[in-house]
């Protein structure tokens, strides 16, 4: 495959196939450092806080949250949408970038996909926890019950159940299919008996046969083809939880594509946050280069701008509609009691990413790191603005109210961070963070060593 000389190398340093194997599997073979232990302790603590808060919620009722008769969803659904959104980058990177043949994806797709799966796990907690009777969540499954009553296929929540579970399953399968060859690599390198047995089981008997590779490539491509519309569909369907309703600020047709781009936007921000730390702590700077960061920043600015256009479209249309409820909702967003949430969202999501038009900033790691955290915050507030400010002042002013989160809700949110980071830390400890075989496959076309030749 010919590669234009003006392209920057994706793999730095003098790498051979073996050095790739060695460097990427180093964290698994070696002992973790004190940073890792500190991290896992913190995240486990957060997880325990979350578990307590969840138990409290289920035991005493959803009244332990701050919602009320007007704002029936608060942090719970905000967090849900936020986490699902974050869970979009991984599959987007693996699927859509695979279809578009973006080679820079190979260094980050594995970790991004893992992040996707963990984020979806965190997200999926909320729809269950926010139920009044979570132990009856199985009522939402289409099983033949003695009541002969099925589920309501008209409900976007049912669509959600199917969308999230499909997304989770397919993402997991996709991720694991990609992992199998690399787990084989690890299997063949670890020495301790226990580890060997573990990776032997996990690698599903991978041999590296050409026939298998052919099928592997084929299934990866088709799964990518399936996962690509799936990524779009999941956040589209999440957006339908809002857009099918009548509530001004929710009922708007632009939601699906706007949610999807917002999700990818926030997902990439989270990938950046994690990867900037991971590459440093695991010494992967030569695989996850500034070039990778810049590529991701380009996606950030693209999706961020799409989100910005959507904000403005919504704002304009609310005025243009001549519908007093729409008009009031948007006026209220910007100037009502939750004005600060709206402006945090605007600043973090629309204004701050515009700085990425400057190449210097795009390639500045510190700046990117700070910006990615800004975006994570901004995107959380976007969902908060949509969920809470739309509901808190809807049609009948008599029922308008305010929403204040409870300590329990905060605890659960902290808990999901605990789950997320615990899983992520375990992942980087036991699984190859970078797709070893995929990096090897682009070594000759995109590494510094070979391009120079």
């Amino acid at each position, binding site marked *: *495959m010919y590669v234009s000389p003006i392209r920057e190398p994706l793999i730095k340093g003098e790498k051979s196939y073996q050095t790739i194997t060695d460097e990427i599997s180093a964290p698994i073979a070696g002992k973790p450092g004190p940073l890792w232990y500190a991290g896992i302790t913190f995240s486990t603590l957060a997880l325990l806080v979350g578990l307590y808060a969840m138990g409290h919620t289920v035991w005493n009722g959803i009244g332990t949250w701050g919602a009320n008769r007007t704002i029936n969803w608060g942090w719970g659904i905000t967090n849900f949408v936020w986490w699902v959104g974050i869970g979009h980058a991984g599959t987007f990177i693996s699927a859509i970038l695979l279809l*578009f043949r973006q080679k820079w994806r190979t260094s980050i797709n594995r970790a991004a996909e893992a992040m996707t799966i963990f984020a979806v796990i965190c997200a999926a907690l909320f729809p269950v926890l926010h139920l009044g009777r979570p132990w009856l969540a199985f009522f939402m499954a289409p099983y033949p019950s003695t009541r002969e009553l099925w589920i309501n296929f008209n409900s976007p929540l049912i669509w959600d159940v199917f969308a999230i579970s499909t997304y989770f399953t397919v993402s997991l399968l996709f991720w694991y299919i990609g992992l199998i060859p690399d787990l084989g690599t690890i299997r063949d390198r670890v020495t301790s008996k226990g580890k060997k047995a573990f990776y032997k089981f996990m690698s599903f008997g991978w041999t590296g046969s050409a026939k298998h590779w052919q099928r592997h490539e084929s299934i990866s491509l088709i799964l990518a083809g399936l996962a690509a519309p799936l990524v779009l569909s999941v956040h*589209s369907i999440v957006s339908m939880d809002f857009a099918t309703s009548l509530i001004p600020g929710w009922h708007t*047709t632009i939601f699906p*594509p706007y949610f999807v781009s917002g999700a990818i936007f926030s997902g990439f921000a989270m990938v950046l946050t994690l990867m900037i730390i991971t590459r440093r702590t695991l010494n992967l700077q030569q695989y996850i280069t500034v070039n990778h960061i810049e590529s991701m920043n*380009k996606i950030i600015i693209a999706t961020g701008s799409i989100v910005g*256009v959507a904000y403005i*479209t919504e704002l304009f249309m609310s005025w243009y509609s*001549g519908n007093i409820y729409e008009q009031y909702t948007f006026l209220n967003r910007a100037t009502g009691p939750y004005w600060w949430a709206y402006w945090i969202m605007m600043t973090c999501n629309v204004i701050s990413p515009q700085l990425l038009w400057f190449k210097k900033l795009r390639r500045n790691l510190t700046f990117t790191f700070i910006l990615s955290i800004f975006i994570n915050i901004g995107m959380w507030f976007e969902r908060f603005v949509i969920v809470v400010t739309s509901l808190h002042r809807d049609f009948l002013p008599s029922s308008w109210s305010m929403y204040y989160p409870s300590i329990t809700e905060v605890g659960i949110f902290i808990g999901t961070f605990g789950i997320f980071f615990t899983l992520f830390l375990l992942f980087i400890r036991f699984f190859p963070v970078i797709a070893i075989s995929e990096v090897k496959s682009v070594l000759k076309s995109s590494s510094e060593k070979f391009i120079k030749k």
Partner: protein
Amino acid sequence: MNEKFKFEKSQKITFILLIVVGLLSLTAGILIYKDHPEKIWSNILLNNYYFLAIALCGIFFVAVHKIADSGWQASLIRIPESFASYIPIAAILMFLIYFGMHDIYHWTHTESLDHILQGKTAYLNMPFFFIRMFIYFALWILVSYGLRRLSIKSDFENDNKHFNKSRTYAALFVVLFAITSSTMSWDWLLSIDAHWYSTMFGWYIFSGALVTSIAAITLIILYLRKKGYMQYITESHLHDLGKYLFGFSIMWAYLWFVQFLFIWYANIQEETVYFVQRLEHFPILFYANVIINLVLPFFVLMSRGSKMKTSILATIAAIILIGHWIDLYLVIMPGSVGNSASVGFLEIGLSIGYAGLFLYVIFNSLTKASLVPVNHPFLEESLHYET
């Protein structure tokens, strides 16, 4: 590698004949539909929009690939680049609408507006409408010509400086088009049904235009290949164009569907009125729209083989061109002409005329430069491209 396109006489005559067909049906239309000027004007608007959108999305295609550092398309980029030359013609044609404003746009009847439309006059008023139109065209022409000029320039100087400069232009165009693609559809299409609104509208119209434009690019490439040009365009390139057609058709259908779904679901009368009219009075076109633009491309282009096969790709691209014409017809006609709108000689004839004009302009423009951007930094990648 320098390949020059020659605009043959026979081609010129064919295109001029097409234009004559268009002019004849327009004249006949004017005579027959004396009392229905809205029919004439709506057809002009439809074709104005349809071909302008093809041209703009062609430039968008160029710009996006440029800023994405995409390599595979470098060898075929001259085709969409040439679309820039149609934009000034489209501008002239669009400004003609001035004389038909009252027949198309209800909101121009300022003497009889209800309170909702009165509330919109800050945006929907004649002066501002034309100021916006002027700004759109001015910017589009400026940037698209800039892009094309830089691209051609680089043919003569083997230096990446033009390429790098054109990246800035490309970024500029993408940003510009991100905004204007929506506003132009609000101005020219959405305001026909002046009471109705949908936040999705701009993106939905844009996605349709993008598919149309890719179909047009594909067809022109296939035609040129048949004529013996561009033999370096391989199955791999066609596969990618086919994937685009497939993908963006689904994208269009997705946007069309969710817009319909939400309105159907909530069933709020101020929104449903749009679809109720189209479903009640244009059921055949309504369903044909979905079948032609989603079902056909989906099943036909799903397999790898059909995307690479010239005959299938050409047929489906042509069908998609017709399909999105129907889509646009459904957007415009029920609002401006009303329930009596139909597809007749005027609709077909005028569109043929516009097609002739468009092709004439494009082919003429293709003669101005090599079909291969010889010094394009990714040209080699494109020529060695394989899926």
